[in-house]
């Protein structure tokens, strides 16, 4: 029986690599694999597009938004409670507005485990983030860094490599024009209705061209929003916008029937 000889004389056939080599080969069209533990984001569509199937640990994640305090918790509140169940804490570093602990409790984040660190200058924000990341905290780190430079992010990324907690940096979406050493960059914006539009401009592996639309209603609204409104806002929001532009053209605003609905206590 002739034995195939893997010699230089034969043409190189990428289809018949030895098995251990084939497993180690990463192809450009595939999604990269994460070396470290990941934390499920709570959205199946998003998990399937993130390397390793979730938010990475031992690495930075940049979340880019058109404005601050827009949809942070709608994106993260499904993954963070699992990190806090084992006694971890969530560190909010220099958020632009005051967090509301009672509202966070309704999302499943225990108020005792929330730590808000106030820092006003960009230098202090970076220093605090670095100190917290370096100390390898249990839980999650959320830091708002509107004015960080790439070399500063690189420094954080190096410290994050020894941090066994996900580190999220919130930056304005305009930061996309600059390069960033963070291995994962996710742009988030509210889409029509209760959806979030998620794009992944940078990840390990092939880039993702089209946007993902995640159904992300704030967790504490799901029980009070009637089914009728769970779909309505998409069309109405479009309608009002259209109406407004017409109204400008006409020079008057058409009276709008309120879509409000009383809440029963």
């Amino acid at each position, binding site marked *: 029986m002739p034995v195939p000889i893997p010699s230089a004389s034969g043409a190189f056939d990428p289809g018949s690599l030895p098995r251990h080599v084939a497993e180690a080969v990463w192809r450009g069209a595939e999604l990269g694999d994460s070396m470290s533990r990941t934390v499920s984001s709570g959205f199946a569509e998003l998990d399937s597009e993130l390397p390793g199937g979730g938010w990475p640990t031992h690495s930075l994640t940049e979340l880019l938004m058109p404005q601050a305090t827009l949809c942070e918790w709608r994106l993260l509140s499904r993954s963070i409670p699992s990190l806090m169940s084992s*006694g971890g804490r969530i560190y909010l570093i220099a958020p632009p507005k005051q*967090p*509301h602990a*009672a509202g966070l409790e*309704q999302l499943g984040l225990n108020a005792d485990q929330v*730590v808000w660190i106030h820092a006003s200058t960009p230098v*202090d924000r970076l220093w605090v983030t670095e100190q*917290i990341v370096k100390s390898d*905290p249990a839980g999650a780190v959320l830091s708002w860094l509107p004015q960080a430079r790439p070399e500063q992010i690189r420094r954080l990324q190096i410290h994050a490599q020894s941090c066994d907690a996900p580190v999220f940096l919130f930056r304005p979406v305009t930061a996309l024009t600059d390069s960033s050493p963070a291995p994962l960059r996710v742009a988030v914006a509210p889409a029509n209705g209760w959806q979030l539009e998620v794009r992944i401009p940078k990840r390990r592996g092939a880039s993702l061209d089209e946007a993902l639309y995640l159904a992300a209603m*704030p967790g504490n609204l799901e029980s009070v929003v009637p089914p009728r409104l769970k779909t309505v806002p998409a069309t109405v929001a479009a309608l009002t916008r259209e109406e407004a532009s017409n109204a400008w053209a006409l020079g008057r605003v058409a009276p709008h029937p309120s879509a409000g609905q009383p809440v029963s206590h």
Partner: protein
Amino acid sequence: MLGHWAALLPIPLPASPSPIDATSLGIWALQFTPRVALVEGSVVAEVSGSARLFGGMEALHSLIEGGAAELGARIAWAPTGTSALALARHAPGEAVFDGFRAPLAKILDPLPLQAISAVSKHQPTLARVGCRTLGDVRSLPRGGLSRRFDKELLAALDQAYALRPEVYEWISLPETFHASLELTSRVETAPALLFGARRLLVQMAGWLAARRMGATAFTLRWCHDVMRAKDAGAGGELTVRTGQPTQNVEHFARLLAEHLAKVQLAAPAGDIELLATEVLPIIEESRSLIPETLRKGANTDLALERIQARLGNTCVRRPALSADHRLEWMQSWECNAQRKSSQPPYELPLPSWVLDEPLRLMERDNRPYYQGPLQLLLGPDRIEGGWWQRSGEGADARPLNVQRDYWLALSAHAGVLWVFQQRLARDQTAWFLHGHFA
């Protein structure tokens, strides 16, 4: 009879002209073993009983040697206290000398007569009979030695060569800690005090470890130089507090550095003094084989303390919830963590971000505008009350009464919002933005 002895001989460090005094060095060494004695301005310590506690003799060696290098002491290891001391004084070269690397007699024999003080007393006589080293003395006939010289000489020689047991008076640990240091040069800026203070911190950590305590507060005092302005005063002091009792030198040094960075010295300082002002029993980490994962957040607590030291106490905030319907008074943020009383959750949805002050919204055609027209989804959620509370004391205090109808609003650009309309305010009726469901 053979033990495992360390002899520590104080030597001057570049940071300070005066070497550490033997008593402080002895107190520091008490953390490793209770058998510590002061002999002729040096410290001898017997550590064979502590090897297991510190994870083996090698680990113990490196711990003691590292500490001794920081405090400024030469160290020698030997099977007896007298020989360890002799080696620390007269061993050639390096700062650490291991007397276990060859038989004891072979190491001791080439040492000069001054190495053991009982022998050096008779040095002129011994030198005249041609003895230059301890080995020469040892080879003289014992009978003649004991007749011609006092019995201490033979006893000291026998003790050094481990032929006779040694007797020491062990020192005991003081109840309180204070240590002082004279600086090499006058220090004009407060952060530079840290270089000198570090040695004192190492001493304090040794005392704390020996007492099985942790410090929750320590005070650094500095004395101004005599050449000072009249209004500068005699000195100053700085008290540093820690959240948890700790013995960690690195943590002490970092906290002290953050605090010293804010201090302005009124005059150059020449001496510093360190006191452990508040100490509490410490829960020590288990040195078990299986690593503990429960203590993972400990480093982060230290980091939070450093952040508080640099940015001020109020910058690290923990929420405290209280039973109130009004959004502003439902929570407060406090700097020290405390357990909240368990409360039933508020039934209606609450936003995850609130504004410090409600933002008055523009209105167009009786409808609120915020980055475009707002679409009111759900409401009204009526919140009333607060007549019992006033904003401060005095004539300008106004009641913190609210009469509001809260609505859940949706904006195309700003997401889901929590807005309210002021009720019963006559011409003050207006829409306000109060929170974000982000």
